């Protein structure tokens, strides 16, 4: 379970205004719906939590008591399949909202890929806050539409036949998400491991590694570091992907 350091230790992420105003995802997360002077209401129900890599945030089947905004790091959402395979369905990036699609219980497990920081909100209090600030509700609706679009991208990726098509589309989608959050399109930061990518794309680790090599040998990407992918030829990578992610 997540360590609620902020709640128990002396280090506070709840100083009025400061933390939220300086937050890197202030303009991307759900809180973007609120004016600076309204943030206090959100901060009042918020617990900022720092969790280590590989630690669980929420578990599939648990009652949905809290929702979260990821402010830094990366989460993986997954479901264990009956055959024991782990199907990762999404990677959450800073600014993303955890708990968007869940009903009374979490339908997926969320784990930190790397050390991450989350803002947690009790569901009941968040619901009350949305009544007070309908813009929060509108913002969540908008985020739901974005999440649906990302799910569509994900379906396209998983629907591709060839492993290199899947990997190429995956890299392009990540690159676009980086661009959307104001970062350069390349290099693409891959905080997740090859195993994570394999469990997301439905491939073996060997196939993922081989696919990286194939894309590199074709001069489409370079791998300057283990967790970085430089896109050398975006046009050709898009042709290999065989889809046009938006």
């Amino acid at each position, binding site marked *: 379970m997540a360590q609620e350091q902020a709640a128990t230790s002396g280090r506070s992420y709840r100083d009025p205004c400061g933390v939220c105003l300086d937050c890197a995802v202030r303009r991307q997360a759900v809180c973007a719906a609120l004016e600076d002077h309204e943030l206090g209401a959100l901060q009042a129900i918020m617990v900022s939590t720092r969790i280590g890599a590989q630690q669980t945030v929420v578990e599939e089947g648990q009652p949905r008591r809290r929702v979260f905004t990821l402010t830094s790091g990366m989460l993986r959402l997954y479901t264990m399949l009956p055959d024991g395979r782990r199907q990762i369905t999404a990677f959450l990036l800073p600014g993303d909202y955890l708990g968007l699609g869940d009903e009374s219980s979490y339908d997926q497990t969320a784990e930190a890929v790397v050390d991450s920081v989350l803002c947690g909100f009790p569901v009941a209090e968040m619901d009350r806050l949305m009544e007070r600030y309908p813009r929060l509700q509108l913002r969540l609706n908008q985020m739901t539409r974005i999440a649906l679009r990302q799910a569509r991208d994900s379906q396209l990726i998983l629907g591709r*036949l*060839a*492993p*290199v*098509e899947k990997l*190429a589309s995956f890299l392009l989608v990540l690159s676009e998400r980086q661009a959307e959050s104001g970062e350069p399109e390349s290099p693409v930061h891959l905080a997740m491991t090859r195993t994570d990518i394999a469990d997301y794309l439905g491939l073996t680790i060997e196939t993922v590694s*081989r*696919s990286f*090599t*194939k894309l590199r*040998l*074709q*001069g*489409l990407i370079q791998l300057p570091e283990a967790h970085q992918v430089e896109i050398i*030829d975006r*046009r*050709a*990578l898009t*042709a*290999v*992907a*065989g889809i046009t992610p938006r």
Partner: protein
Amino acid sequence: MTVEAAVRRYAARPVPRYTSYPAAAEFSAAVGSAEHAAWLRRLDPDESVSLYLHVPYCRELCHYCGCHTKIAVRDHVIAGYRQALEGEIALVGSLLPRRIRVGRLAWGGGTPSILGAEGLAAVLAALRRQFDIEAGIEHAIELDPRHVDPALARALAGLGVNRVSLGVQDLDPGVQAAIGRIQPQATVAAAVRMLREAGVASINFDLIYGLPHQTVASIRATCAAVAGLQPDRIAFFGYAHLPYRRANQRLIDETVLPDAAARYDQARAIAQHFQARGFVPVGIDHFAAPHDALAKAVADGRLRRNFQGYTDDDRPILLGFGASAVSRLPEGFVQNIADNPRYCRAIAGQQLATTRGWRLTEEDLARGRIIEALMCSFEADLERLDPARTYPDELALLRPLAADGLLEIRSSRIRMTEAGRPVVRVAAAVFDSFRAQDGKGFSMAV
């Protein structure tokens, strides 16, 4: 981006020449003399084979040379090597189920004529003791035009040699000085005359582009001069500058080497020259006169790829003799030790000199068929060449080339466009499952 810009970009990519699949660079030490012997014992004696004899010695070493060859300063070294060749022939012969027919014979090097007419005759006699050499077969040899005289020409014709490849490179004196090989046009013309007078029917020229100081102008002049000598075939290769591997190439001034763009222009100048004069384009780097067997093989779709380039030889089995020589057997490839003294010592000890090889899997054979089809006819029908696999990754990786106008993909059929033909090696490399490592060490596609 124009198609030509795309071709130029792909042309600079390091890719194997695919004279075999897997490329010899992929052979493994896991295959050695035990496999070599077992595979020879299991040869079908009713199938005729091709033979290749490698003579890795030269009187002097040219700066550009990338072949496996050494300077022979003493005659006893050459005599020793000739004995080793004869020894290897006897050894291989003793492993064969029974006498096998030979349908093709080729000598390469180095400078095979360094053995002298008597040496060549002695090796041929050794071959005849083990093999049935059919009458009138194609019998080819590589010659250095500087070392051809009427006596050698007559001796070769007497031994049945009917095709000669002469290394011409470039006829420009400045280029010749830069590559350490001075052979004026008159030398080449004289060699051709002597060989034709002796009755050697077919003459091939080997040209090289990408050499120091070489220009499109020097190449056009070379092409015009050699075309006047009415060759039967032209082979043209890009100079592969690998000085970290070849000490002799360190003599070449890198600052005067043509860059990738210039190499591309030079290759195209050669192709345009011979095509304009009615020669038939053969694969990526050969031309043949319309009457030549290779031109007919192109017309009939019988062109094949082998270690020497392109051939109309459809025999699946090649027995290679000599240091570094490769044999292609039904079960796999085997390659001899490249170091000449070590090769000779192995043979003297009655051992096969095998050092590496590759046991072919069904998948290797299938991928090899696809790569050979692309290299020879610039098209491949994947479903026909390999009904067992679907190649989704490969088809996806070819899409950028298709988008650039270099090839067309229609379901399982790949066809290089006219513009894309020069970079067919790049498309072939997509089917090479051995290319897990970086391409460093292979020459540029053009």
